[in-house]
Structure formats: C-alpha cells, structure tokens
C-alpha cells in the first residue's frame, strides 16, 4: 500500500529518514531533485568519504562504513550485502555518484582519495570540483600502476588540492616529464622519488617525510641539514628518511663522511602513527638548542639517511 511520503512535514521526514541507511537514502535521492532536497533538510551526520580508483566510494561515520561499488551488469544494480562491510553496487558514473553523495549527505571532508590512473579522467573531474570547493582531503594516495602516461598532469592537480595529512606516491613516473610538489601535508611518502630535488626538499613543511629511490646527493643533504640548523627553519620536521644511490662516502654531510653513526649511542624513538627510531645516531644541534639525531648507513641495497628531531613531548631516548 503506497503512502505519499513527501506530504509529511519536514520533521516527520527527518524521523523516517533516521531509519533509512545511506544506501536507501542514495536510492531515494535518485528518485527526484525534491527527494534529494528533503534528505538534505533532514539533518546531517559528520560523514566522510573515500574514493578508490577505478570505482569504489566509501562513506563512513563513527563505526559505520558503507561501500559503493560500480555495478558491471544491469542485473546487479542496487544489489549488495548488509554483512559488514556493508556494500551496494551502483549504476552511475563514479563522478556522478561521488557528487551525489557529497551533496545528499552534506559531506565536507574527504578522508582519502586513492588513484591508480585506471580512470584518470574521472579522478581529474573529482579533483577539480574538490579544488573548486576547497574541500579538505586528509589523505591522497597515488597507487602503483605500470601505465602512468597521465602522471604529468597529476602534480598540478595535487598542488591545488587541499591535502592536509598525508600524500603517498608509489608509481615510477616517466623521466621525460618534470614533477614538482609545491604544497605539503603533514606526512609525505614517495616511493620512486628521483624527481624530488633539493629545491622541493628545502621548500617542504612536513612533520614526516620519507623518500625512497632518491637522487638526492651528500651535497644536497648537507645543504638541507645546514639550513635546518638555522633557528625557525623546518619548525615542523620530526622525521626524515631517504634511500638513495647518490648517498655515498665521497663527500661530507655536516662535516662528517658517511657512514655516520656512533656505536653505543642511545636509541632515539618517536611514534608517528607507527614507530620510527634511530640507534647509534649522532646528535646534531640546531642553533636554538633543538637536537636531532642523524644516522647515515651505506651498507645494504640502498644507502640510507635517517634524521629524527627530538620533541620532548613524544621522543623517547633510551641509553644502551
């Protein structure tokens, strides 16, 4: 027996919608513009959204997580599972779904964007709108994928996006293009970081940075660490880790020829989501008295530099 739902006053609609899960509200939003407006009026939770290439979108709040996956066949439309994690297959283009969810649920924060270049056009459409709305993106992850022909277009987008917490870049970009990271969230991890040069390192404002397969040399790192010693430079930096073949024993870093370590020195340890530590490092002082622990190792497949800045609030120094 049908009932004319939209004839209910707004407070009653709100009470009804409280018992509908996001999948039902999404389907309802597709019925008409008026129903979508009614859902918006019915109050908002603090939903956040995640996007995973090529077509998965998740919205979540507290301990609730709803997963929308692209339907391959018409018979799968709106089918899904209510077992955790709850999921439903959608028929739309992923861009349409993404913006429908943003608008219907009044989402103003993106928890994560994860792309692997399988659907770059969709991603760039999403990125452009997020830029237009200046929406906060907590984490942005560029996943590993062999075909990265669109990589040249990614950095201009990244630099305009409001990424606040974490940027991770896994793939190996083509050498013939120039890539420049100009804005920095708190944490950065770049796997194939050959393109991340000293200019970008000197420009960073990160708390934690990890650069693998780097082209930075002893001279570059010497310049960076000397700059760090000046008061008020890199005030956020807590952890720097660099793997690179150009770190060698041919020239000094802060007047020390690598390897740089003193066996028997204490363990300096800090937790940034997960634990980072330096054992047998060498203390280096900033001109304002801040201490950092430096260690450079040349053995192993990739020479590595680790630098941990002591923060009395979260750094633990253990004698050995």
């Amino acid at each position, binding site marked *: 027996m049908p009932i004319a739902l939209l004839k209910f006053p707004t407070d009653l609609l709100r009470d009804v919608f409280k018992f509908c899960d996001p999948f039902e509200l999404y*389907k309802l939003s597709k019925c008409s513009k008026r129903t979508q407006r009614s859902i918006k009026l019915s109050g908002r939770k603090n939903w956040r959204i995640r996007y995973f290439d090529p077509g998965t979108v998740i919205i979540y709040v507290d301990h609730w997580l709803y997963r929308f996956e692209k339907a391959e066949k018409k018979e799968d439309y709106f089918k899904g599972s209510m077992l955790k994690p709850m999921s439903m297959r959608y028929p739309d283009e992923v861009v349409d779904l993404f913006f429908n969810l943003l608008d219907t649920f009044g989402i103003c924060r993106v928890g994560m964007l994860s792309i692997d270049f399988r659907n770059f056009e969709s991603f760039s459409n999403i990125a452009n709108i997020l830029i237009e709305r200046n929406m906060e993106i907590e984490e942005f992850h560029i996943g590993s994928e062999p075909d990265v022909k669109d990589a040249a277009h990614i950095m201009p987008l990244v630099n305009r996006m409001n990424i606040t917490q974490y940027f991770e870049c896994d793939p190996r970009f083509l050498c013939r293009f120039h890539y420049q990271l100009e804005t920095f969230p708190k944490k950065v991890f770049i796997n194939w970081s050959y393109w991340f040069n000293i200019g970008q390192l000197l420009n960073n404002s990160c708390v934690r940075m990890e650069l693998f397969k780097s082209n930075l040399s002893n001279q570059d790192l010497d310049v960076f660490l000397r700059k760090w010693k000046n008061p008020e430079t890199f005030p956020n930096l807590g952890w720097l880790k660099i793997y690179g073949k150009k770190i060698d024993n041919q020239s000094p870093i802060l007047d020390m020829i690598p390897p740089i370590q003193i066996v028997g020195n204490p363990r300096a340890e800090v937790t940034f989501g997960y634990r980072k530590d330096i054992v047998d490092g060498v203390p280096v002082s900033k001109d304002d008295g801040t201490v950092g622990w430096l260690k450079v190792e040349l053995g192993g497949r990739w020479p590595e530099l680790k630098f941990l800045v002591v923060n009395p609030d979260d750094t633990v120094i253990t004698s050995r």
Partner: protein
Amino acid sequence: MSSTEQGTSSAAPAEPTTAPESAAAPEVPESFYYVHGKDKVVHKVSAGALQHSALIHGMISNLGYTEEQAKANPFPFENIDGDILQMVVDWCNQHKGKPTPPEDTNLPKQKEKLFDLVLAVNYLEIKELLTYCCKQVAMMVKGKSPEEIREIWMIPTDAEDEAAEKEAKKRAGKEAAGETAAAAGDAK
C-alpha cells in the same frame, strides 16, 4: 480496548464504556478524560493512558477538570479520522504505565492507515508510537530499487514536480488577478 458510542457530539457526549483496567487495581481512583475524532465518537481514556500523548497530557495538566467536567468537555480532534483515533486510544490503553518494548507486537499493523496514523501520532505527540510508525514507513523501502521506492512512497518525477509547480503558479496568478478585478469592482 476502549469501546465507543456513535453519534455523540462534543457538547453532549453519550455515556461511553470504560476501557478495561489492568489486573492490579490502582489505590487512588483513576481520573478519566474523553476524546473524539472527526466522526464524533467519544472515547473514554484514563489519564494514565493519555500520558503517552505529550499534547493531551499538557492540556489536562492545565485544566484540573472534575470527572463531570471532563465528561462534558471531550477533547475534539477534528483533524483525526475516527478509526485512526481508535487505534491510537487502543495503543495508549495497552501501554498505560509501561514503556514500549523495542519490538512491540501490539502496534497497529494496517499499512493502508499508516500515513494517517503517522500524522495523527505526530500531532498528538506520542513519541514512542511515532518512532515505531516512522520505522514502519522506512521499512517499506528496505532493499527496493529507486523505481520501486518511487511507487511505494508516491514520489513524483522531476517533470511531474515541475508541471505541478507551473500549475500552482498559474493558479496563484489567476487568483491574484481575480482578487484585483473584484477589488476594482468594489471600488466602482
């Protein structure tokens, strides 16, 4: 279940029968009030049962009626159909003095009456029953496609909404023009 008599007016209600009492008789004599809906059928309901309705509870707390005064002045709910009010009164009697369990088997099941029941319960401010009714409405579309939802909840398409909006504007325009003409006629 309360019983009722037909055809009584709010000004002179016929003698209604009393709703059944719970097994344990209250120590203090219970006060009763009288309500009627659109059909003018008067229902005698105890103050205890009426406590579920924030609206009626608020009204009776301010009145301080005697039994005779209450009988002579039943609360008129002209906007509620008689059968709907009957359902509500039944529910209030069944749940007198006790909270509603999460899965209440005594709740009204008639889907065809759900729309009017929700509006009545909302008007009477019976929070627990309203919650249940809203849940029932929401459950109607569980697992349905947008097309099915559109049918179940009678949702017009965008085109239908636009057409209705145009029609409403046209009607409003005509009415305004009619009023202007009438005013001009009066002036002459």
